[in-house]
């Protein structure tokens, strides 16, 4: 059995990408954050610290809400994607 990167795994899912991001990050707060939990708690690994900034891509979001709960700075403004957009589980 082959090890799958998180991108490989996300590629197996059915998404209807909403061009309008459903999550907004207050990056100024991220710069003050020491732990940056978003970079390891997100099951889709959509958050990364590039040295200066948090990079985030809402495409691939599994809509679990973990980032919002784990963020110690309350920098994540979170909603579901608009109706009919986002993840669509075929198995669940």
């Amino acid at each position, binding site marked *: 059995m082959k090890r799958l990167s998180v991108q490989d795994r996300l590629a197996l*899912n059915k998404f209807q990408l909403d061009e309008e991001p459903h999550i907004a990050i207050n990056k100024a707060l991220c710069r003050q954050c020491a732990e940056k939990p978003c970079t390891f*708690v997100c099951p889709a690994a959509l958050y990364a610290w590039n040295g200066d900034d948090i990079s985030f891509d809402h495409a691939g979001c*599994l809509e679990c809400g973990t980032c919002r*709960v784990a963020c110690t700075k309350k920098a994540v403004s979170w909603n579901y994607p608009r109706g*009919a957009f986002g993840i669509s*589980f075929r*198995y*669940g």
Partner: protein
Amino acid sequence: MSDDKFDCIIVGTGPAGSAAAYELARRGLEVALVEKGDRPGCKNMTGGRLYCHSLRQIIPDFWEEAPVERRVEKEELCFLTERGAVTLTLDNEALGEESARSYTVLRADFDAWLAGKAEEAGAMIVTGIRVDDLLWSGDRVCGIKAGEDEIFSDVVIAADGVNSLLARKAGLRGELRPEHVAVGVKSVIALPKKIVEDRFCLRENTGAARLFVGACTKGVPGGGFLYTNKESLSLGLVFNVASLVKAGVSVAEAVEDFKFHPVIQPFVEGGEVVEYSAHLVPEAGLAMKPVLFTGGMLVAGDAAGFVLNTGYIVRGMDFAVTSGALAARAVMAAKEKGDFSAATLKIYGDFLRQSHVFRDLETYKNVPDLLEEPDLYTTFPTLAVDILTDLFKVKGDPPERVRKLVMRHLNRKKSFLKLVKTCWKGARSL
């Protein structure tokens, strides 16, 4: 529909929402069941199974027609170290008795079926609509707002899941706290039916449910699960979010590492991952319970935090069904009175207190605290695996008496003391 208004709008097509819609619709109420996904069930996933007792009260013998996966007749609890495991296995057909059975399910199909039952009963299903806000008339909720659209009703049932944005908008609940929730992550791994049955020693249509405690969560309170579906396995991990943040463990990596654990790998070998999903799990029981009603609104299912994890049993869907059905009962009582104020709807709280929902959560209310014991995930699985490994290993060395062997391990790192302490705590919590 009288005055362009529904009797009840239900938000969310999980088991809570669909059970409520089914109960109301079949009694002739005008019901709208609103789902943000493009079809019912498509936003839902589970790392558990469906205990049938509550749904069979509403739809007797539902398993005859519902898309369930396998009837669980093999329960396993596995204590895991980095390389080894001690597993308890219970095989018993009695687990499959009608009054107590449980099924593994895949939610996309199962939830769509249950929503379909509500639709058959007369509920109107509206998909692809994200509810953005509630409509108010004074201190009473009187409908929902989705984009520019407004839909009115006597009552709204928020069955919109663990993140329940509606319960927050209504001021019934604050932000979720990291110590109160866990993140569950799952891979569905396709395998031929015969291989699933052979690998788990199962008869046709019966299934196995295996829970893991130990190294899989890398010291973080939580656990692993492996369920057999008809032609796939559900494999995944659950982490308490507050502990996860402290530990700095990468969820996406840990869940893939789990697949390659020497105890797991033979089960999944040759399988094809077909889906990767994640969800928050409310795990603090009554400690995280929101206010369950206000004028014109009720909260049910995950949105109300109705999940019970005892460490060996994980239940949520059966609570969802019961709370949805009881919310429906409360709506009917309010309709009879023609009064949808908080004073009338508080009967929902009474119904819940008389039901298994509160009884079960109350009985196990100290378990979340027990499950935070770090030794459960490190010291104890290691102890079990090491003692049994030394017991079974034959190297030709001078023999060690069993009692001495056991005490040698128990004396390591104050293990004995920790074990006694945790057993005592466990005995009081469970």
